[in-house]
């Protein structure tokens, strides 16, 4: 779009490059296909849990489309904005952060094209916490398995959560099954993800994540598994936490 190029500090050629990369992020049959397939299930989980947690009213048709109006949401490790954009469409005030400047540029270009207002920042959870930012909802979806200092990270997130707020963590379990599915299956056999995307040893068990959040004065409200059904080519919520799981934890 025209007005993105107007910013003086940004090279137009660079923007074109980001736009091409944005197309790649957002191509539902491209490199990030697994994330696109997984997106509806995790958004549905977040939506229903948030509506339930804040007892949001959803009687009216328009409100059903924008139930998150008035909520300030932080999306950590937002990548190309695959989760930030739906949150903004659902009516939330979204701040989205990523440690990769490239990702932030990509996400900005795409949000502009989608006509969405999202506050994308090239920063970290720790810096946001230091700046005193506060949020109703914090999303850590598929990020903690890539974080170096997990304890510092969860602590930073917890301090940014308003009292009564809720935090989501989605990640991979450290089990034989997750090794078979997420590493061998997804990276080597199905080639869903580039080899080396995940380091299995850094995966956390649900009990370990639960302990981390409890140490930061959060209480676990729900733990759900997400299971892939290859016959339907679809993800479902389940009780099976052995590969992908999501935790919702509230600040008292």
């Amino acid at each position, binding site marked *: 779009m025209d007005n993105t190029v107007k910013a003086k500090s940004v090279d137009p050629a660079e923007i074109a490059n980001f736009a091409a990369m944005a*197309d790649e992020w957002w191509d*539902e049959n491209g490199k990030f296909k697994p994330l696109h397939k997984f997106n*509806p299930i995790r*958004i549905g989980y977040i*939506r229903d849990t948030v509506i339930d947690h804040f007892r949001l009213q959803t009687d009216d*048709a328009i409100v059903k*489309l924008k139930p998150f109006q008035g909520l300030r949401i932080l999306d950590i490790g937002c990548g190309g904005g695959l989760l930030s954009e*739906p949150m903004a469409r659902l009516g939330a005030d979204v701040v989205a952060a990523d440690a990769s400047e490239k990702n932030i540029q990509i996400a900005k270009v795409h949000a502009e094209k*989608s006509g969405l207002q999202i506050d994308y920042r090239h920063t970290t959870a720790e810096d946001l916490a230091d700046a005193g930012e506060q949020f109703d909802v914090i999303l850590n979806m598929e990020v903690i398995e890539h974080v170096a200092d997990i304890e510092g990270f969860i602590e930073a997130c917890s301090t940014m959560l308003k009292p009564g707020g809720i935090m989501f963590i989605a990640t991979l379990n450290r089990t034989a099954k997750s090794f078979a599915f997420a590493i061998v299956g997804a990276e080597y056999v199905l080639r869903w993800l580039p080899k080396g995307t995940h380091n299995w040893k850094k995966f956390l068990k649900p009990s370990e994540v639960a302990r981390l959040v409890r140490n930061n004065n959060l209480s676990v409200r729900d733990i759900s598994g997400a299971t892939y059904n290859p016959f339907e080519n679809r993800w479902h919520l389940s009780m099976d936490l052995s590969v992908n799981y999501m935790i919702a934890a509230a600040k008292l």
Partner: protein
Amino acid sequence: MTGKLNKVDVLVVGGGLNGLPFAIAVASAGLDVLVLEREEPTHLVDAEFDGRVSAIAHASRNLFRACGIWDHVKAAEPMLDIRITDGPSNFFLHYDHRQLGDEPFGHMVENRHLRQALYARAAEIPTLTIKAPAEYSEIVRDCSGVTAHLVSGEAVTARLIVAADGRNSPIRKQAGIKSVGWSYDQMGIVCTIAHEKPHHGVAQERFLKPGPFAILPMTGNRSSLVWTEQTERAKVIMALPEPEFHREMTKRFGDYLGDLKVVGPRWGYPLNLHQAERYADLRLALIGDAAHGMHPIAGQGLNLGLRDVAALAEVVIDAARLGQDIGGGTVLEDYQRWRRLDSVVLLAITDGLNRLFTNNVVPIRIARDVGLAAVNRMPKLKGLFMEHARGTVGKMPRLLRGEAL
């Protein structure tokens, strides 16, 4: 409305019997919808424009009810009984709605009454705008959206465009989606008959040699006639002066409803069948006749289109409530997977029925006579056929079950 016409969620091209129900369904769920219709709305509700009567299957009525359309339908005749006979033979298949519960198989509604009801309902929805008469000059679809340039000079952008622009769908052609099909060399002659005696809600479908001859109950002592003939012969019949036409019609109709009188004009519709190779493209979904057309033998044309309406409305609204891009590939893929197989199967069944019943080879004739009588004695198989007539077979979208989106 002029000047403000810039950005909507969904653009529907074609404000007909599929386009409007879809627009109403998604707009009443809160999406901003614009419908472009070529014809003048007052023209569309004129009996001279479309004299056809539609059989609204039970499931389709559920959709109309769930969308708040049914209450606006002025006149609907319940179809309580369907009698299917094979030409001169005495065998017949008898569907009685009471075998499936209290609800009738469906209702016969004049298309103009349907259109009136659709316009009345549309007017109640603040997020729905109908622009008619209106034409577009160009439609551009890309990754980030759809832009339609109207002949009036206005432009509108949307996340998703829905083509409900009929069997020759210019939008389908522009998208390069091929449609395969064939013509039957048959025409349907359609007219309204006033008769002396009441029809008691009984629909008759007779498989005569040149094709099906259907008598469908309308309100009052009236029935809608759908009379299939080979094309050349149909043209001759269509051109007959009133007394001769009346004589030919009466010969086939019989005298079970007493004296007959043709009221209003006769219409002739060529019969053909087609199926689009895909129901979706970048930011585009095809519904109704734009996606498929069928032989009207089983009265399923509109009902099949309404299945598209219900399925697409459901995937679009579910995606919107997840904050997803409603014109994105995942949504359209879900729609296509849900609908296409279903319509291929129904098209094949009706095509097969037509070929079976217009065949005059003696063994086939005997086989189908025995077959009809046999189906009548096999409750399970008959139940399935009846469910099909009511449109309640297959994975049902919420609207067809009468539930809200």
